[in-house]
């Protein structure tokens, strides 16, 4: 049975060249903080990787901090900017206690902000339109002298919609408010230029761009002061204590190098595959809704709602045929509430329950799409035949 992996937004396989870089780096066991030759070999590997990560987003190497995951990068920004420690020189010293974010962020942004909300911060949760786009006009209205941070994702993980980050960051800059963007789902897939967009912080993660899990990065614009969350040694300019994850960092550096080299080619190829999948689904299956923006979207993400049936059933039936996808809802992960993103774009509950996310990666081929389009219509029909809601069954 073929195996087709269409869950690359959850995590990506490790790129063969990244695997090689890890293998080559296995003997770099020295502590990058040690002054002897073994430590310095590790230091050099870490700093080389930093240059490559910086190049991916057009930053200076000194503006990149390595962390353990995208969630840590997001937490570092949100908690670091709002830190209340009296010795801090961060934005916390500003009297403002207002944060602006959106209704479609990842939980690693939403939950730290909710925690601050409980601690007395005022939070504006910007809505999105039917495509998942944030209206810059609403940001302009919400932002004030009290605002200390705006956090808006570059591209949405569930529906792929790409936000107008440059325009949004410009508004924040006009008010001298820090702007953070969670680019975990976009980095390596889209061209990202922090100088052009003018963001102050940008999060990215290794395992979404063909590096392993356990390594990520945060861009912090030169001159911006934040407090560390993981306090400890002087590593990463004192912003992230803990001995550097040399192997992970080397892998992330390699993955960024490959991403820069292959980006154009991949974007073009993945767009074609996504379009084939989208058109194929719409041709072969009735009563389907495609979610997200028709153009302003990641080439890797396709969110589709199959009416009258439930997402987890689709996922498990596809899985038994060797196709790995994800539900748009959090149902299978323990919560029975449908996805906050799908509800935010105005999808009714019953449709949100029937949503599947197909997410593509560099390994996907035309044959993968052929096989998916061969299997999917049958799976959908079987489940609809089983559904008391399917009108086709009421003769």
């Amino acid at each position, binding site marked *: 049975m073929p195996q087709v992996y269409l869950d690359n937004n959850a995590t990506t396989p490790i790129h063969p060249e990244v695997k090689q870089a890890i293998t080559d780096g296995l003997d770099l066991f020295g502590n990058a903080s040690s002054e002897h030759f073994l430590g310095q070999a590790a230091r050099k590997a870490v700093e080389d990787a930093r240059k490559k990560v910086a190049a991916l987003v057009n930053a200076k190497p000194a503006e990149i901090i390595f962390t353990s995951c995208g969630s840590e990068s997001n937490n570092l920004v949100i908690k670091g900017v709002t830190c209340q420690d009296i010795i801090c020189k961060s934005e916390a010293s500003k009297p403002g206690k207002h944060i602006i974010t959106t209704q479609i962020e990842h939980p690693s942004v939403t939950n730290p902000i909710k925690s601050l909300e409980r601690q007395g911060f005022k939070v504006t949760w910007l809505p999105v339109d039917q495509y998942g786009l944030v209206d810059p006009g609403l940001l302009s209205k919400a932002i004030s002298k009290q605002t200390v941070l705006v956090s808006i994702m570059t591209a949405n993980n569930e529906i792929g919609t790409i936000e107008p980050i440059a325009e949004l960051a410009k508004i924040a800059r006009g008010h001298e408010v820090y702007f953070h963007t969670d680019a975990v789902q976009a980095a390596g897939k889209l061209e990202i230029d922090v100088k052009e967009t003018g963001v102050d912080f940008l999060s990215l993660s290794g395992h979404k761009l063909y590096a392993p899990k356990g390594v990520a990065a945060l861009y912090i614009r030169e001159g911006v002061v934040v407090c560390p969350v993981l306090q400890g040694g002087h590593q990463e300019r004192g912003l992230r204590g803990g001995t550097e994850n040399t192997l992970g960092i080397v892998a992330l550096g390699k993955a960024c190098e490959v991403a820069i080299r292959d980006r154009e080619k991949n974007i073009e190829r993945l767009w074609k595959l996504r379009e084939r999948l989208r058109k194929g689904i719409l041709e072969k299956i009735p009563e389907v809704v495609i979610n997200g923006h028709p153009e302003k979207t990641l080439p890797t993400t396709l969110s589709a709602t199959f009416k009258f*049936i439930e997402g987890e*059933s689709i996922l498990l039936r596809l899985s038994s045929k060797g196709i790995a996808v994800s539900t748009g809802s959090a149902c299978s992960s323990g919560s029975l509430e449908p996805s906050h993103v799908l509800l935010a774009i105005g999808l009714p*509950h*019953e449709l949100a329950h029937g949503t599947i996310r197909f997410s593509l990666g560099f390994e996907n081929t035309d044959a993968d799409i052929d096989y998916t389009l061969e299997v999917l219509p049958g799976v959908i029909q079987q489940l609809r035949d089983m559904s*008391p809601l399917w009108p086709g069954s009421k003769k």
Partner: protein
Amino acid sequence: MIYNEKVIDYFQNPRNMGEMPDADAVGEVGSPVCGDVMKIWLKINKEGVITDAKFKTFGCASAVASSSIATEMVIGKHVNEARKMSNRDVVDALGGLPEHKIHCSVLAADAIHRAIDKYLGIAVEEDKDVEYLCKCQKITRERIEEAIAHGAYTVEMVAEATGATKGECGGVRCKPLIEDILDLYRPRKKKEAN
């Protein structure tokens, strides 16, 4: 995998799936908004014995498996016997369900009860006087059970869904009562393990 092999088997190869045009009793429960709808058809002979059962389900794997196995369990039973079937019997027959999927078994048992009650002519709305389980917030037992059927499996989740326990008394009166109701729906094995 969050499900055991038996649940997956009943999901992948559902028994008794389909409609029954000449059914003697039909029960439908759930709502598309909550992500589960179950419809169960029963054929009942003159002696009151269920001779055939069919189902259709909109929902997740455990909802399909619960309704499928529930139809198997009632075939051959007298309606009085089948009416005693609880959600725990469904969970046990499936060899267990994840805690956050217990509500699927509740719906399956409810669908059977609904069909039989209608067949026997028992009024579905049998609550005579409205008695509030959470007196401060004026919340009925029925509302609590509905929240459980829609996925709440802890007192906190019931509180979140209904507003119970959040009144003046802070849940002093109703928390133990809600615990008792939750206990009724929890799988037996789990309780013994505690």
